[in-house]
């Protein structure tokens, strides 16, 4: 079967061609590249979530081990965390807008939405850094207790992911600027938006397990 055949029978590249048969599921040969790239990236995201789960597990084990130092209830400022959360969730929304702009091939809207996403993501990082700085200033840095080691690692690892995402976001904007809405660039953008939304999912877990449970402890 030629590539054109697949495109006609499968206009949305969902991989399904009726009768329950899908390329890559045995009947039609290798799946189209967009499916392969998206699938591979999902697998990567799953592995990333497994890594986070190891940090979550470590945090759960060490959450009560304050070694005479401050506990979460004394340290966490839920107002600050609420603003962080709002910024990150909103950035997912603007990232969604960027996806719509890509689908509509509207580059000006794309840049606006991506710039907004960047600003929101960057403010999230700044708020997080401010929180870290406050804690370190009052002798509640990561070396103070096992609880704080686990806290800084888990939250910091998410922060590093967001920072890497911001770097990727800028690169993505430059790519669309330089190359336009080319197929390979679109696939890359799809991966970027998957990545950005996945960071939200991890933040929701983090917000609940670390901050909400921690503030009540």
């Amino acid at each position: 079967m030629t590539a054109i055949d697949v495109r006609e029978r499968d206009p949305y590249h969902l991989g399904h061609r009726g009768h329950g048969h899908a390329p890559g599921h045995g009947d039609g040969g290798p799946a189209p590249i967009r499916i392969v790239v998206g699938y591979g990236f999902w697998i990567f995201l799953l592995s990333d979530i497994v890594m986070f789960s190891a940090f979550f597990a470590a945090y759960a084990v060490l959450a009560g081990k304050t070694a005479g130092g401050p506990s979460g209830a004394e340290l966490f400022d839920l107002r600050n965390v609420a603003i962080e959360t709002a910024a990150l969730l909103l950035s997912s929304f603007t990232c969604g807008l960027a996806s719509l702009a890509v689908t509509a091939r509207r580059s000006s809207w794309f840049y606006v939405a991506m710039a907004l996403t960047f600003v929101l993501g960057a403010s999230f990082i700044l708020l997080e850094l401010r929180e870290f700085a406050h804690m370190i200033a009052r002798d509640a840095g990561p070396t103070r207790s096992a609880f704080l080691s686990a806290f800084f690692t888990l939250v910091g690892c998410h922060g590093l992911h967001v920072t890497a995402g911001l770097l990727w976001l800028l690169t993505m904007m430059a790519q669309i600027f330089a190359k336009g809405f080319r197929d390979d660039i679109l696939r890359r953008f799809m991966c970027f938006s998957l990545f950005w939304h996945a960071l939200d999912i991890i933040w929701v877990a983090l917000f609940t397990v670390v901050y909400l449970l921690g503030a009540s402890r």
Partner: protein
Amino acid sequence: MLGKLSWDVIPFDQPLPMIASAVVALAILGVLAWVFLAGHFPYLWREWITSVDHKRIGVMYTLLALLMLLRGFSDAVMMRSQQALAFQAPGYLPPDHFNQVFSAHGTIMIFFGAMPFVIGLMNLVVPLQLGVRDVAFPTLNSVSFWLTATGALLVNISLVIGEFARTGWLPYPPLSETAYSPGVGVDYYLWAVQIAGVGTLLTGINFVTTILKMRAPGMSYLSMSMFCWTSLAASLLIVAAFPILTATLAMLTLDRYFGFHFFTNEAGGNMLMFVNLIWAWGHPEVYILVLPAFGIFSEVISTFSSKPLFGYRSMVAATLFICIVSFMVWLHHFFTMGAGADVNAAFGIATSIIAVGTGVKIYNWMFTMYGGRIRFATPMLWSLGFMVTFVIGGMTGVLLAVPPADFLLHNSLFLVAHFHNVIIGGVLFGAFAGYTYWFPKAFGFRLHEGWGKLAFWLTLIGFYATFVPLYTVGLLGMTRRMQHFDVPAWYPWVLVAGAGMLITTAGVVAQIIQLVVSIRQRAALRDVTGDPWDGRSLEWATPSPPPVFNFAALPHVEGEEPYWSIKQRAREQNRLRDEPEYEPIEMPRNSPTGFICAFFATVMGFALIWHIWWMVALGALGAFATFVVFAWRDIPEYVIPAAEVARIDRANRSARREALATYTGPRP
């Protein structure tokens, strides 16, 4: 400026590592000089270093594995000879050095010997067996390989610059914390394994995607070859387990570099958490290694018994059963650490249950051979040796799975003998079976049978002579990792194990001679048709070595043994399939991304080990720039014209037509 680095870190006062590394350095320089002076570098750069072809990457993985197996083996020789000499005597390796040797031995054998060997064979064979042209992400594949090579390089650099860990192959805290291991040894371990681990994780992602999303038309899950199934299971385990390793090593790194308290003795740290986390990766890792080996045995036993694999579906079920249960047994590595009788009992039972999956496989292999026309070629010998050896190793494993018995045998040489029994008898025998079986596919000529059989028998006998005494001496109470000992009852057994090592060494030498002799006699050993063993799966449908695009036209698959049915039809009708309509083929272009990326990873890893922070930043920047440059490429593929495809395929067809005309075996 250079962090902790100075001239003092080079062990000028220790002759052994200095001489060893001088010899290695001279050999490397010699090879490099020859490559450049003889003008081979452009060829190497074009055809190998920048290659994104899964077959080339597979060969490079295997080559890396063979070199590292030799390095790890020399460590083993040193340990056995040290113990043979160290009865009521200091021997020739001081404790400090001996501890580095056993740590390096385990690290190198698992991460840089066994893993690259298994992944190399997966790379070479899986896309061919799936009937496709490459893996899902060819350039990522090259990145994976070069990151693994970076890890291997860092471990070997530690021989000359600084030191290696003295903690054993898994750096248990608190010993591995800064307070007790202030040197760079553990840091070498951490960064080498971390970087190679990223490479392995990317391989896992690549192969899960390849196997699930890229198969020849008509190939359903239940018509994939057994090796593809076990590779899929191993890749799934990589995706699920390696991130745990990454996180665990990151935590230890933070403890060591920034004074965090994950695993320390004070401030609430929990060192048992390290042991739990590392084995939550470590036990699946065992199956990441051995499942592909099971796949190799399935291919080899079926081919050389001239029969389809017995109980294919039960084999698939057993593979997936092992895949899942391998995550439920990790605690048996530390029964003695006080989890309590109930927990120990649960994990002991789970451990005994996982043996059922392997038992199913052993019976399936035996029934595959039953009634078959068995050819005792070298790959088949390795498989038979495996079946006997692995059953013994499995039974001592079930013995260790009984917690009360484990309390006696824990940390003894009985345990060491057990896991060598399953890793050598399972993984290594499998890798050697695959190596001899697929060598003609990779290079176009077979390996010499006589030397191969000699290597097999020497290795098998050497293995038993080395490890049966270690079982015994373990039961007599000798613990592992002893630099010297003074119990007279152990001495004769330790001597026998040392002698066994000599036989194994002869096996290694035979294996090297086999390669040299085969290369010299390659004209006589030539595989003309691409199907030297009367194979049954799709890799044998291609010429040896296969062209870069593997298949002139993607095969249409019906049933479980796609190539066998094609071949049988040809034998029945006494003619080949009709010539396909040749079309131009698009293939991914070569890319130096993997190599350059690994170069920066090496710089970064080395700088992190020695606390040279500006160099870390430079390495990170370089790696990012490499990715951006790669992302900016405009032409990712090149086209092979239809005429070229036709020329290559017709040459192979005519060879196959000739073979068919002179075929005298049974016809359906």
